[in-house]
């Protein structure tokens, strides 16, 4: 790269050479940056069609490197540049879906997908996509995060109808695997800003699960998760009795969830302060 950069030559030849550098190390951000500059320079006086063709070719090159290097910042950023220059994100959701089929929690893939959705307004169908992923694995927290992202961008997170529907969605998934933290975190994230009394059945569900009914060998039936959320629900209500209960729950959690004993002790100490 040193001699290429020193020469200041932006040509088909140096574009090809940069590919060789990338083949040796796909994380060479200098080489990727050089490629983008090269394509800009080479097609500065080209027709729009020619420029489109060049970026499409580059996108194809990028796609191949992407499949070989799933966890590489440079490939994903380069893709973003190509697609921005093309002004066309229509095939990108399918590409990301392909990557997620290999690695359903790939952080770069999800971040890129969020960029595509927002940039091109391709929201329709995304909740269905998330639903498919959750059917494959209810514990895919990236999918849960995506659900929040979509709703935040397209819906009113304070609407009672939406909150009730989402609470039901989360509860349905808690039913499937009560110890799975994802839907519990989702519930908390949705309701904490608006108040848990927006959806009273959530408290009822927590009370039920916190009462030790659902434990089975190897699983506590979601008891610790429910007690944890109940602490927050009771805290929000603020009555003396409920604060006392909240404190008692923290004490119990300190014993049932010992890796977090210090945290529960501190939480209990902060109640009513």
């Amino acid at each position, binding site marked *: *790269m*040193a001699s290429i*950069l*020193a020469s200041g030559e932006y040509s088909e030849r140096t574009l090809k050479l940069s590919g060789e550098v990338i083949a*040796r*190390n*796909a*994380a*060479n*951000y*200098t080489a990727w*940056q050089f490629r*983008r500059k090269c394509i800009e320079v080479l097609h500065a006086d080209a027709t729009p069609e020619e420029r489109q063709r060049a970026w499409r070719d580059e996108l194809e090159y990028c796609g191949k490197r992407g499949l070989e290097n799933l966890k590489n*910042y440079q490939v*994903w*950023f380069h893709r973003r*540049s190509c697609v921005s220059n093309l002004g066309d994100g229509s095939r990108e959701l399918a590409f990301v879906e392909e990557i997620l089929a290999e690695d*359903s*929690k790939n*952080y770069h893939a*999800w*971040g890129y997908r*969020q960029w595509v959705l927002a940039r091109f307004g391709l929201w329709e169908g995304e909740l269905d996509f998330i639903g498919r992923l959750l059917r*494959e*694995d*209810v*514990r*895919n*927290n*990236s999918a*849960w*995060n995506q659900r*929040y*992202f979509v709703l*935040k961008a397209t819906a009113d997170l304070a609407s009672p109808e939406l909150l009730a529907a989402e609470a039901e969605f989360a509860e349905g998934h808690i039913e*499937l*695997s009560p*110890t*799975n*933290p*994802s839907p519990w*975190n*989702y519930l*908390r*994230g949705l309701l904490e800003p608006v108040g848990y009394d927006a959806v009273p059945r959530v408290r009822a569900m927590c009370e039920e699960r916190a009462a030790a009914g659902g434990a089975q060998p*190897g*699983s*506590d039936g979601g008891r*610790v*998760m429910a007690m944890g959320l109940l602490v927050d629900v009771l805290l929000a209500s603020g009555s003396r009795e409920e604060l006392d209960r909240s404190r008692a729950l923290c004490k119990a959690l300190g014993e*049932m*969830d*010992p*890796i*977090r*004993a*210090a*945290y529960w002790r*501190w939480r209990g100490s*902060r109640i009513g302060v």
Partner: protein
Amino acid sequence: LAGLYTDSEDGLPTGTSEEQAQVEDACQRLFDELAGPDGKLLRESVHLRRSDHVAYLHAGLGSLGEGYASLDASRPWLCYWIVHSLAILSPEPLSPSLADGVVGFIGRCIDPVGGGFCGGPYPGQSAHLAPTYAAVNSLVTIGTAEAYAVIERAQLGSFLLRMKQTDGSFTMHDDGEADVRGAYCAMAVATLTGQLEARLARGTADWLLRCQTYEGGIGATPGEEAHGGYTFCALAALVLLNQACRLRLPALVAWLSQRQMAHSGGFQGRTNKLVDSCYSFWQGGAFPLVHSVLHDLGQLPADTDLYHAPGLLDYILVCAQAPHGGLRDKPGKARDYYHTCYSLSGLAVAAAAHQLAGVPSEWVESVGVVNPVFNVLNARVDQALRHF
């Protein structure tokens, strides 16, 4: 480790739970090998294999094999991972010849035109905030006059400013991606070299705060999933900007606490992902930061940890130490310098915790005292702040 299951299969196995079970089995085998007659881990029989790690680290300062080609654009990182790890493990400074070698190499990575440090010698590579952070941290760790002399303050400052975007974020390099790492690298380097000024800081805290998710942790950019690496970066940057109190702190602490694995004591990076020793620092190191913010707000007594330091130490010493030196992500993975650095950094953080009942003093004595904001030895940070 004792404790009820806080997550399990619940009769519905999925990819996540299956992988989790596999890792728990692998860790449990190691814990069992070291168990006493009561079935619990016999900590006294577990040793920090200091000299093995030091040998592995010194070997890394020589030449690295073909397997490291993928880090060819991260060579200052390799310097930092190694010199910082050595600083944690051994009280003596780096030998003058090794120090000169590292300082000399880092000097060749400077971009003399635009400022900043590159992933490898200039002009083959261009300046980037991550190797800049790693380079400055390496030089501060070495802490000699020659090391400090490598840093051309004004040029470095102008590189940082050039990376700054109108929305408050920082791109990692010219025509590069912007995420919370950029803000952290810029704030850390600016602070250490005494040039964190208004122009550099403007709007950055506001942008960082947008990255806190509904889960309470922080993602790479607004909307992305809460993740340990990015949570540390954002939190440390906000601490440097003196605006960490603007975070939703109860949610952040709850999320951080939930990331410690009940079974193995180590940390996962995200909800429902696997334990990884590097999060010993990214997640574990976030705790002293959050402790100090809460303490300043009068919400946390001085002698309190909000995580389980003995549990974290158990994971690092039993599961992360590799047989012939170096540390690894988890049992079954190969050692590498990145995981060695961040496991040892987590060890240093945990060694400074308040509640260390049952932890052998051998595990924590003569472990370097690390400043968790920069992840550099405290004494070297102080020295640098005085110098610049």
